């Protein structure tokens, strides 16, 4: 299987954090990831989905996920139509959080960066945020 795509649209409620990462993990298993790669992707997407739910407070109440794989590259986009991020660089600093009262650790972006090969953030205040991540999956390469 060289190419595959999945699109998900789900309500932006915390119960769906687990649903989102389980769907993505299931999609990823087709690439025969190692257990560590699977855990890396699950953690990174869990951070992005949680961000969309907590910080996005989406006007339409949804989180949109698109996953793609092409050869051994796994690509995922997590999009919300919420408040957006005014200063992306600041938001990505480790330990920075706008929600200390909710005890967000401020490690979300740091974990996404640590566990994925590529991380891009697109955001516009009032429009929403899209987090784009990529990771090369090892075993798929070996099988080619």
């Amino acid at each position, binding site marked *: 299987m060289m190419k595959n795509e999945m699109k998900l649209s789900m309500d932006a409620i*915390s*119960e769906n*954090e*687990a649903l989102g*990462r389980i769907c993505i993990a299931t999609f990823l298993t087709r690439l025969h990831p190692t257990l560590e790669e699977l*855990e890396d992707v*699950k*953690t990174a997407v*869990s*951070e992005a989905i*949680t961000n969309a*739910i*907590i910080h996005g407070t989406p006007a339409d109440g949804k989180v949109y996920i698109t996953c793609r794989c092409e050869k051994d590259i796994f690509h995922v986009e997590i999009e919300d139509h919420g408040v957006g991020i005014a200063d992306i660089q600041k938001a990505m600093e480790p330990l920075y959080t706008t929600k200390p009262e*909710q*005890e*967000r*650790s401020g*490690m*979300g972006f*740091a*974990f996404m960066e*640590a566990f994925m090969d590529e991380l891009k953030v697109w955001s516009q205040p009032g429009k929403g945020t899209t987090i784009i991540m990529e990771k090369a999956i090892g075993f798929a390469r070996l099988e080619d």
Partner: protein
Amino acid sequence: MEETGIFEIRENCLLVHMPEEVDHHTTKSIRRLADHYLLDNRVQQIVFDFADTMFMDSSGIGLLSGRNAKITCFGGRTIVINANTRIRKLLQIAGLQDQVCIMDEI
């Protein structure tokens, strides 16, 4: 269904059995209940038992560092037990391994 850790008080120690999946959703109620026990019982140690935990994200880091900040105010300490290599790695990336005591078991 609300998934929560199960709390146990043993002498001056609060033992928290962490759920299978530790994320933003499951940590909300654990945080609320843990703080309730911390204030009511003046516990000196809080022990997070990760024996059943298969998944954790940065919400678990927030939960641990928040409880640790509170208990150290009373001169207490935080202990993490039965953490698998994955959880240990997350604690290390977040710089928590120097703030909490990581043990195999109590």
